[in-house]
């Protein structure tokens, strides 16, 4: 099975977030970066599928030169080779633009399976995988919790709302967007890090006509507010109302 895994490089969670001067993105000039969390699970799933069914795992990433780091990390974990679409314009690009860049880079490879993370830790659009599937003309399924390879196709488990799941059969080639926690991530080994040096990384340019599909108007930190609400009534009534508010409005229980 020939599997592509699309990974995004995002600012690490420890990085203190500050809105930059354009007020449309965060200051990430000196940030440290890491692999987008669901993408790490997608990579792990691809490596497991390869171990079970043979084939090849190709890691793909679109972004400025710095994304070479997550590519190396993926190769160190066991991906066989990489395709990197390099452009500064892809640093904080929208899903449509990234999907177009990736589609152009991987279309000719005719992958049996394309995996992406469910969503990105920074923008959280959850669209890149879906749009990419459309551009490649293959079916997709989202929020995947389990992948089984059945003859000629796939059986996948999707996560629904409220603790429900759904099994879906689909033909391949296909694209799946993988949910965090689907498997147990392996460590990058020192041998893996050293071996990554020798693996092929194909660097390609994005299509010349690549342009944003939408524009972030403003990014801001939510204002902190403190609201006190007094629930009146007898203790029994008040307790009942409190539970209702916590469940239905605050949604914390």
């Amino acid at each position, binding site marked *: 099975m020939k599997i592509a895994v699309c990974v995004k490089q995002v600012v690490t969670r420890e990085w203190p977030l500050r809105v930059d001067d354009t007020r449309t993105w965060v200051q990430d000039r000196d940030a440290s970066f*890491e692999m987008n969390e669901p993408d790490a699970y997608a990579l792990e799933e691809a490596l497991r599928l390869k171990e079970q069914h043979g084939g090849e795992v190709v890691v793909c990433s679109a972004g400025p030169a710095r994304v*070479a*780091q997550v590519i*190396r*990390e993926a190769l*160190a974990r066991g991906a066989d080779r990489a395709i990197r679409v390099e452009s500064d314009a892809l640093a904080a690009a929208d899903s449509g633009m990234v999907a177009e860049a990736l589609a152009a880079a991987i279309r000719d490879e005719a992958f049996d399976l394309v995996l992406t993370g469910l969503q990105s830790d920074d923008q959280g659009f959850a669209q890149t995988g879906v749009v990419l599937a459309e551009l490649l003309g293959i079916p997709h399924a989202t929020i995947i919790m389990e992948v089984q390879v059945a003859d000629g196709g796939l059986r996948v488990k999707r996560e629904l709302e409220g603790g429900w799941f759904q099994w879906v059969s689909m033909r391949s080639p296909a694209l799946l967007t993988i949910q965090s926690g689907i498997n147990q991530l392996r*460590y*990058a*080994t*020192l*041998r893996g*890090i*050293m071996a*990554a*040096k020798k693996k092929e990384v194909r660097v390609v340019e994005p299509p010349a006509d690549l342009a944003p599909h939408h524009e972030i108007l403003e990014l801001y930190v939510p204002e902190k507010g403190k609201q006190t609400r007094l629930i009146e009534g007898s203790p029994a009534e008040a307790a009942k109302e409190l539970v209702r508010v916590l469940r239905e409005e605050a949604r914390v229980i």
Partner: protein
Amino acid sequence: MTNSELHTDLRTAVRELCSRFPDSYWRELDAQEAYPEEFVRALTEAGYLAALIPEDLGGSGLGIAEASIILEEVNRSGGNAAACHAQLYIMGTLLRHGSEAQRRHYLPKIASGELRLQAFAVTEPTTGTDTTQMKTMAVRRGDHYVVNGQKVWISRVEHSDLMLLVARTTPLEEVKKRTEGLSVFLVDLREAIGHGMTVRPIRAMINHASTEVFFDDLEVPVENRVGDEGQGFRYLLDGLNAERILIAAECVGDGRWFIERASRYARDRVVFGRPIGQNQGIQFPIARAYVNVEAADLMRIRAADLFDAGDPCGAEANMAKLLAADASWEAANVTMQTYGGYGFAQEYDIERKFRETRLYQTAPISTNLILAYIGQHVLDLPRSF
């Protein structure tokens, strides 16, 4: 891949591995005085403890700079690399001075983790830092040596398969120089314990698996001697620069861990109506500790670069160890102070790391002895002891 890319990748990967072993993991081990078996296994299986072993012997053939990054990241993540740092570097004696047969036999197994060589027996109760006065004797009898004597503070013996032992093979009275007449042996602990060797754990301020070791007619085959008879002290000195640099890196890791915690706490903790970090009495000591950790790190990098280039680095390695141990200890103190009463509470981990980083003022080499080295060998002052 450039060196700096390799270093970034190593940091990322080791940090990721360490993140699976959170503060609570280390805290519980500390309370139970238990060995971090699971962590050490993970680090071994991922190959990090074989970083310095050449590729043809099953390791990764990396330099001291890379090895030091691995240990730094363990301590920076809140763990304690002392549990396994010796597996990285003790084998150096075998690599440099062992016979071809010894190297081929042991190093691949050490690289894979099948054999643990992470105990090094030098210190003795009555002679301490004055190593050449050691009393443990190994007397040759035909195809083996018979060892008698006692060692103290020997760490990780209970978690090793092999131990390097330094013992006298020629009595002090019979050598021209006191540095002569010592030899190094590879003791197979699986056979030795209970057959001439006894191990007794020492309860200590830190969870370090240190022990007292007694030798009572322990037989060690001649083929387990490493290098030439009588040259042991030279072999010992030979490994010291590597050890100094690695310990310095662990201290830098500790220092960074402390400063991260102290800064975060000082930003978040509000008393007298503002974050305590807004008071210069809290803020400046943290800032100063940060400056000192970063400066120590530069000396450590300098020493590692010289070491990896094969250049002399005794002065730099010693200075790095001193600066880094002082900086981590300062950072530990500052963090204790910043945390107020909570620094003392076990669940914040400050007191644990505080105890752990204090070791490096004393072992493996005390600060005084480094100053003595700098005075004598760098400044050409008269030997003070």
